[in-house]
Each structure stands twice: as C-alpha cells, then as structure tokens.
C-alpha cells in the first residue's frame, strides 16, 4: 500500500511527552491487505515519530522498487517489516514494536502480522496490549481472519477494542456503506462478548480520522483514532478506586537474603545481617505496611513490616511495581509462592478448565503431559480432556478431541499439586498461564482459566487454616 506524503511536511521537531506522562500499549491486527502498515505509517508520520534518516532509507528503498511511480510514494510497510524475509516477501512475519509520543502520552505500538500462519505472533502482541486496533477493509467487510483476531482479542479480554473501518475513501465516504460494515462487525463482537468496542471510519492512506477528525465524514461525530488512544485508560492504571477493589497479589520471584554481602553503608551492615525479603512485581491490587497477608503454598499468615524499593522504604505499593516485602513472621516462602491480601485467596485445587490458544505446530492430544507456568511457579500438569474448539465461521463451540496450531479450544487440566486458581475474568495476571513442552521447553499454548475445579482445601477467605499462626 502506498502512502503519499509530502516530505516537506516532516517536522523538524519530534513530539515529546512529558516525563510524568503515562505509557499506553496497543496492537494493530486484522487481515492481510486491510492496511495495517499504512495505518502505522500514517500514525508515526503524522505524530512526527519518523526520523529523517529512517524516512530517507524507506524512501530510497521504495524508489528502488518503483513504489508509487512518478509521485514518489513511500511503502510504509518497510518501516515496520524489519526482517529480510519480510521485505523480500512483502509480508509481516513477526510483531514489530514501535515507539512514539504525543504531548499527551507515550505509546508502544505492536504491529502484528495478518497472515493466518503467524497468528501466534499476533497473540504475543495482544497479551500486553491496553488496546487493539482491528483493521477492516471497508470494501471487504468482516473476513475469517478478522473473526480469528477478534476471537483472540475476546479470549485475552483486551481492555479496549477499536475497529478501524479502513479505505473509507474508496467508498466515497458513503455513510450507508460504512454503517453496513459497522453493523456486521458489531454482530461479531456481540457474539464474542466483547463489551468495549469503538468503531471509526478511517482512511489510513489519506489520513481521515487518524490524527485529525475528517470533514469528509460529517456523519461520524466521534473522536479520531489518535484522540482515542490518548484518552483510553491503561490496564495497570485504573486509578486507586478500582485497584482497591482488586485483591493484592505478589508472585514471589526470589527471596532476598544477602547474608552480609550487602551494598549498604558499613555502619549499617550489621542491621542487614538477618535481612530477608520477598521480591516480586505486584500483579494486582495494593499493599500497605501493617496489612496482614496470606501465603500459598502453606496457608500461613503474617503482617507486612516493610516494603523496600531499592533502598527506599515505601509505606504503600501497587501494581505493577517491582518491590520487596518484609514480613513479621519467618514463614517458609520460596520462589513460586503467592503473597496475597488476607482473606482474598481462592481455595486451592488440582483441576481447572481453561481456554487454550494453541501455538505449536505439533497438535494437542488428550492425555498430554505438559508444564504450566502460573505467575512465578512452574508445575507438571496433564491435559485430561479437550472439550471443544471455536468454529470461526459460526463463532460457536464445536466438539473436538484435539487442537492444532492457531485453534482456540477448551480443555480440562489436572495439576500435580495444589494451586490457588482464579478465573482470568477475575484476575488477568493470576488467571493466565503458559503451557510448556516438558522436554524441549517450547511454549505450546496461551492458557486462560475459565473455572477452577473442586477445592482440595478451603481458601483463606472461608475459614479453615486461616487462623493458624506459624
């Protein structure tokens, strides 16, 4: 796709967000040729994020390949298709990350591939996204790959979904034609249960409603794409109120116990001789010094006596900070444990049902022995049953006994030991897991807990064990 721009228009000054600004992560998705690369080029160009030497390199290669003919057009796919194979074949194979900023905030853009065989790479881009922009060619409407990508977005519960109905210029900005596409895509998103959907008519080529609102779509009263991206909320930045509602979880990465090998001033070294803290990134919620916590495995409880952030003592910490917690009691806590606000942990279980996005070329058969990684814990598991697979045409679940690459399926999983399991809908961090090949270590699937199985022991919220002090 050729994007014709006036190189004189290239600003001499890149836009810079303030240091206090927030960071917003979004991904682009959609079928091949729906105009992803052109949209990315348009966003980067109009937000002045393409620097002179990059533009020069892309312009040179575009001209060498006869792109845009006499008008000197630029193939903006060259900006993000960074691999030799991608440029040779003119396709996107893997996610390209691009960085740009406006005065409002900074952005990390994951430009995802559109081809079916690289859907697994699109999943990589979408798991960390605060928003996904789904491109649809206004002339073609919803395609199978659109449904596949929307299914992934629904499965991962990406917080914001923006449908960019592209190439609206080729429909002569006809409202009725746009409304038809909008209605058909809203049918699909409703079917998939995607709640927060915003639909925008755009032309990435000409720039309608990308950065500025277009006068050629007077029938569209909403914001431009960039205006939306600048104002949507960030996953880890939902404000104090909603974070208070989300329970505190700290998956323990490691125990910090320097035993004298410390970097503090010599006169303080003695007071750090018995230092012990539990390091990790807060997965959800917040914690204060003095709060009581529960720990799994073990079910012990204790009180937070300190929150350390590299030598600074914090009174409070919240997601997604990387901290180290000190506790009043000497509990048996190792890597893989979860420290949680007392009274909030679910019962432990050894079974669960999950949605799996199968990423590996080797198919999944029932009875497969795998490893699963939840937070910082890796354990053996067994896929006891495959119960269904999403049919991308009907968006219904069809019976299935195995999964192949790029399938979204449902399965029952048995765990080798007790684990506090939460549905992904309740907690994005603790309800997500990897399925790993036990021999070669390949990541086989992205897993999402749909329901924990029968409790093997009550959680700390329901009485048993919760009153026992170590």
């Amino acid at each position, binding site marked *: 796709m050729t994007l014709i721009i006036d190189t004189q228009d290239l600003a001499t000054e890149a836009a810079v967000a303030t240091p206090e600004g*927030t960071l917003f992560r979004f991904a682009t998705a959609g079928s091949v040729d729906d105009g992803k690369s052109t949209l990315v080029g348009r966003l980067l160009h109009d937000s002045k994020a393409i620097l002179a030497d990059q533009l020069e390199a892309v312009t040179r290669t575009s001209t060498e390949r006869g792109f845009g003919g006499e008008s000197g057009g630029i193939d903006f796919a060259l900006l993000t298709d*960074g*691999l030799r194979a991608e440029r040779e074949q003119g396709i996107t194979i893997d996610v*390209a990350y691009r960085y740009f900023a406006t005065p409002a905030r900074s952005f990390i853009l994951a430009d995802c591939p559109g081809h079916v065989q690289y859907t697994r790479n699109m999943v990589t881009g979408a798991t*960390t996204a605060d928003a996904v922009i789904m491109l649809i060619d206004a002339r073609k409407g919803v395609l199978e790959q659109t449904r596949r990508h929307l299914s992934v977005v629904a499965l991962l519960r990406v917080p914001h979904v923006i449908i960019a109905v592209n190439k609206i210029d080729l429909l002569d900005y006809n409202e009725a034609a746009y409304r038809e596409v909008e209605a058909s895509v809203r049918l699909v998103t409703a079917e998939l249960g995607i709640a927060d959907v915003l639909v925008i008519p755009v032309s990435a080529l000409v720039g309608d409603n990308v950065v500025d609102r277009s006068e050629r779509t007077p029938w569209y009263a909403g914001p431009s794409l960039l205006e939306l991206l600048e104002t949507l909320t960030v996953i880890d*930045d939902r404000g104090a109120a909603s974070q208070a509602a989300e329970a505190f979880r700290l998956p323990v990465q490691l125990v910090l116990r*320097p035993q004298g090998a410390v970097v503090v001033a010599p006169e303080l070294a003695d007071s750090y001789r018995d230092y012990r803290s539990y390091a990790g990134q807060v997965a959800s919620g917040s914690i204060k010094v003095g709060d009581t916590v529960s720990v799994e495995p073990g079910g012990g409880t204790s009180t937070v006596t300190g929150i*350390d*952030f590299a030598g600074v003592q914090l009174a409070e910490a919240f997601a997604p900070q990387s901290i180290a917690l000190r506790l009043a009691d000497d509990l048996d806590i190792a890597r893989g444990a979860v420290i949680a606000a007392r009274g909030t942990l679910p019962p432990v279980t050894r079974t669960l049902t999950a949605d799996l996005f199968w990423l590996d070329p080797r198919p999944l058969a029932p009875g497969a022995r795998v490893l699963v990684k939840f937070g910082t814990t890796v354990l053996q598991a067994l896929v006891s049953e495959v119960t269904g697979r999403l049919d991308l045409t009907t968006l219904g679940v069809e019976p299935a006994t195995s999964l192949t690459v790029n399938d979204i399926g449902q399965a029952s999983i048995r765990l080798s030991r007790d684990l506090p399991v939460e549905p992904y809908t309740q907690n994005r961090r603790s309800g997500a897991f990897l399925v790993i090949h036990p021999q070669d270590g390949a990541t086989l699937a992205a897993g999402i807990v749909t329901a924990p199985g029968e409790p093997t022991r009550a959680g700390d919220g329901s009485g048993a064990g919760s009153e026992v002090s170590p």
Partner: protein
Amino acid sequence: MRAPPMNFATHRLSELDVLESEAIHIIREVVAEFERPVLLFSGGKDSVVVLHLAAKAFWPGKIPIELLHVDTGHNFPEVLEFRDKTVAAHGVRLVVAQVQDYIDDGRLAERADGTRNPLQTLPLLDAIAAGRHDAVFGGARRDEDKARAKERILSLRDEFGQWDPRNQRPELWNLYNGRHTVGQHVRAFPISNWTELNVWRYIERENIELPPLYYAHEREVYRRDNMWRAISPVSPARADETVELRTVRYRTVGDMSCTGAVDSNAASVADVVREVGVSTITERGATRADDRISEAAMEDRKKEGYF
C-alpha cells in the same frame, strides 16, 4: 538512590516508573530461573542503565552475577577507565574477552575496512561457553534498529548463538519462558521497551554517572561518511581529510573505528535530554558506520550470534 516520584493518591506510575519495574521484573526472573546468567557491560549508557537496574533488583544484596565485556581493542580509553571504576564500585566480577588475543593467534583476521565490531561475535560465544552461561543480559533496545524491533525480551539462541527471527518463541503477558535445551542459551533484554529519550531521562532522574564523552567536549575530528570521527591510533585521518577541533559529543559509544560523534553543545544531562527530544535522526543512523552497510546489517549480525 532516589525515591521514584510516584503518585500514591491516584496509584499512577509514570512512564519511567512502569519501564523501571518491568526491567527489574525481567532481571529478577532471569536470575531466578537460570543457573549462570551473565551481564554484558561495556560502560556504554545502555549497559550502565541495566547495571543500575540490576543493583536495584537485588538491593540490599550485591548484584549476584558476573559481568562480561568483549574488548575489541578499539574502545575509547576513557570508557574502559569508567568501566573498571563502575565495576569496582558495585563490587562485582568482570570478565574481559579480548578480540586482540584472537587476532594475535590467528583465530580472527583483521578486516580490510579496519572495523572490529563484527569480530566480537566469536570471542563473545567463546566467553559464554567458557563461563557456561545459560543467560546473557544485554542493553539492546527495540527502538535502535528495525531488526531489534522484532526481537523478544527473552531471545532463544542455539549453540552457535544464532537468532532465528522466523521462528521466535511466543512471549505472552509478562510470563517469560526461560526453558532451553543443553547448548542453547537465552539473551535477555530488560530495557527492550525503552527509547533513547527514556534512557536519558532515567539517567537524569537517577543521577547515574556516564563516561564523559557522552557530553559536549572538544575533540580533534575529521569528516568521514557524514560523521565526525575521532583521531586515534586506530582511526587516523587520511591525507585528504581535514582534521579540526570541534565541540562534539557521542550518542552511542562503540569502537573508535566505527563510531561517530555529533556536533553538540549539550554539556549536562538536562542539555542532552533536550537535544535527544528534538533530534531528527536516530542514534544509530547518526553515529554507526557498521549499520550503514545494508538495510539488514543488524539482522545479519544477529543471525550470526551478535547482540
């Protein structure tokens, strides 16, 4: 170390706070999951930032891993001096692999163009094997180059150190999969998501010391490939090149034989932050002769085991 300026009333982290916590999480995850990680440390700004983050990750303990530097023999002397001083201050062990040793005994041959940057790969792979390292931290950032823009935060390499860009392991949420088979190792890039401006703002916020050549200073230089090249024993001017004294600084610090300086009056961190914010040229485009070889220069080097 200063307290990060976080806002407890809103529970909102700034961009730098988010990137810092992400990097510390990656560093802790790799140190916890691997047997013998090592951190590549050249004294360049990105590796200095990674070292600073590692110190934060394990405070109050010392950084529990070794550092490794592949010295091409073309490094700036003031950077090597800074490297050794910084290593001593952190109380960690540094292993240095010398490209010169390989040239002396014939395992590597000097290139016709005189640059040694591509020669680093073999000593790097040997040092990784000799140290039995299964994870190697680097300070590479995705905004540096379009091949780097494609690489995972944990990048699996085979026993030849090769990157297979067509078949990368999916990387989901913040659940990093460090599993590997014998002979494989992982390159870990904690500041993948940082831009050049993020790095400089962090250096400013944390008051991190850097080698002096990152700031404006007077230097004898000559013009080659549209860059100011420093006069040194390994980068002499040709007869037709005019040597002049200019006020310059370095945006990246690599070999004297392939790194260029830029005209700059930015003498302080705050000056540099302002300068980077309005720059119209990328840092590698402005200063690296080795990346100008072809559109895919970086990808080709990475496939051979380079960082």
